[in-house]
């Protein structure tokens, strides 16, 4: 039986699997899953079908060249790719206390990228505020021994702070780091 806790917002769902079998606290998994909306893809597909249908009508009834149909198919494919297709569907962190941490990225095509970091190489997990010219968001990273740059735990997603905090606490506990800051959240 797995302990499951879920937090969700408009874009992401956070799931925490704390497997009690075969050993309690042997493996701790945190997933961030991209939410799929139901309504939006229907509209986009409908629009793409209408576009191709209209191009076909123009070709067969009005005598426009076949390239019109070709262009409409191309445009439809572009719309679907940019508005519906999600390259990354899920990012996970598998924490094995005393052993290491595995970072996984699940792609829409079925490919899974995994990276294992032994616990001896992790100096500290940190929650950082990442400032860009247009926005500011939180990101969770690991300070790795002998590496100059921070390693992001969630490479593609930017989940909200309330989803990052349980993962950060679990990483601190697993890598034996004492939290040096306590913070009180506003109600």
């Amino acid at each position, binding site marked *: 039986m797995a302990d499951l806790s879920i937090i969700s*917002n*408009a874009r992401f769902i956070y799931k925490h699997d704390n497997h009690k079998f075969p050993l309690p606290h042997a493996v701790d998994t945190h997933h961030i899953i991209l939410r799929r909306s139901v309504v939006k893809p229907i509209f986009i597909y409908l629009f793409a079908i209408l576009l191709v249908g209209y191009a076909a009508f123009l070709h067969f009834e009005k005598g426009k060249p076949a390239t019109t149909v070709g262009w409409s198919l191309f445009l439809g494919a572009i719309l679907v790719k940019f508005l519906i297709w999600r390259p990354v569907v899920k990012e996970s962190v598998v924490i094995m206390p005393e052993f290491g941490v595995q970072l996984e990225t699940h792609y829409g095509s079925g490919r899974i990228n995994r990276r294992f970091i032994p616990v001896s190489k992790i100096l500290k997990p940190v929650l*950082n*505020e*990442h*400032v*860009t*010219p*247009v*926005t*500011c968001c*939180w990101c969770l990273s690991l300070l790795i021994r002998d590496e100059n740059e921070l390693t992001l735990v969630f490479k593609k997603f930017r989940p*909200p*702070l*309330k989803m990052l905090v349980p993962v950060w606490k679990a990483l601190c506990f697993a890598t034996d780091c*004492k939290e*040096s*800051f*306590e*913070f*009180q*959240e*506003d109600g």
Partner: protein
Amino acid sequence: MELKEGKHRILMVSDFFYPNFGGVENHIYLLSQCLLKLGHKVVVMTHAYGNRSGVRYMTNGLKVYYVPWKPFLMQNTLPTFYGTLPIIRTILIRERISLVHGHQAFSTLCHEALMHARTMGYKVIFTDHSLYGFSDIGSIHMNKVLQFTLADVSQAICVSHTSKENTVLRSGLPPEKVYVIPNAVDTTMFKPAPERLCMDPIVIVVISRLVYRKGADLLVEVIPEVCHLYPNVRFIIGGDGPKRVRLEEMREKHSLQDRVDMLGAVPHAKVRSVLNSGHIFLNSSLTEAFCIAILEAASCGLLTVSTRVGGVPEVLPDDMIVLAKPDPSDMVHAIKKAIRILPHIDPQEMHLRMKEMYSWHDVAKRTEIVYDHALRCSNQTLLERLPRYLTCGAWAGKLFCLVMIIDFILWRLLQLWQPDSEVEPVPDFKPTELKRG
């Protein structure tokens, strides 16, 4: 950590902040520290300096956002009108700011931040730190921009009455909206030497940027004259700049190498020791809204000789300063008078008087009153605010209205794209004692 009743969450915005060093930077930092002590929450926003980009925390939890916009001219961010709207909106929502305080008319980031903050309905305050002219092309454009920003500001602060007059004339702001809060000096850092220096030789100290505005050309005329009249007078000149070459030439020409010491750029931490090695402080600025340098000198117990320009006469009482016209012969006359009255000056007594007259805590309390007044101003919609921009000029007024309308539309579009509820507020951090183990 909820703030107590009457305490505010303030965003200080300027292009000028640490690691850059200067009067405005110092003012923002010390004012923020004193406001933090009074229980307010202060966040500073500035542009990135080289590698220093992102969020940094300074003493007492002062949070600084170094936003990665590249500076393009004299430390100023590239003015894009609407480019900074997303990041400013994000910072205002996530820090739950109630009040935006911009510094320095020359800072483009400050003007943009104040414009966007007004569009989003926040109360804004502007502090002007310098005097500007009216006649040259640069000043005319700057004054137009200032008119635009100040057309709709809640309150404004100036550092001296002369500066208030200058700001009111340049921007057309009603004088009732402008408060005068002078700068202060950290008297714990600037203390006189424990033992009084002996009167022979008499040392005159000059510490300033060696540029035209600071009157370096006057020094070139004054120093040889004074050295000729008084064989027991020495000069120490700290600071660097384009006019340094002229001063070196003056030294060579009059063979004053053993009587005039040129120290080069003096780091702020060393200024006190340089001041403590002198009896008289000489300030030859051609224009000055307020002059913190003479406050520092007076706090160290030096008698000041200065040009009577801008806000300088308002800074010190008459027995601590000798004023002169910005003219070499008048300045030499003033130095003569200063040397005459020097034996009657007691550095320790001067320092104690300065301690009572100027303190950053006092500046913070007075600024708090301005914040309270600003927050009591009524909330106004875009249509109620637009007529204020129309008074800026026949063409300029309409252009400013258009700029504000486009800003409003862009803000609404941004709210549709990313609603306010999606921007997470930052939890307030209260650092606990570090566990020693």
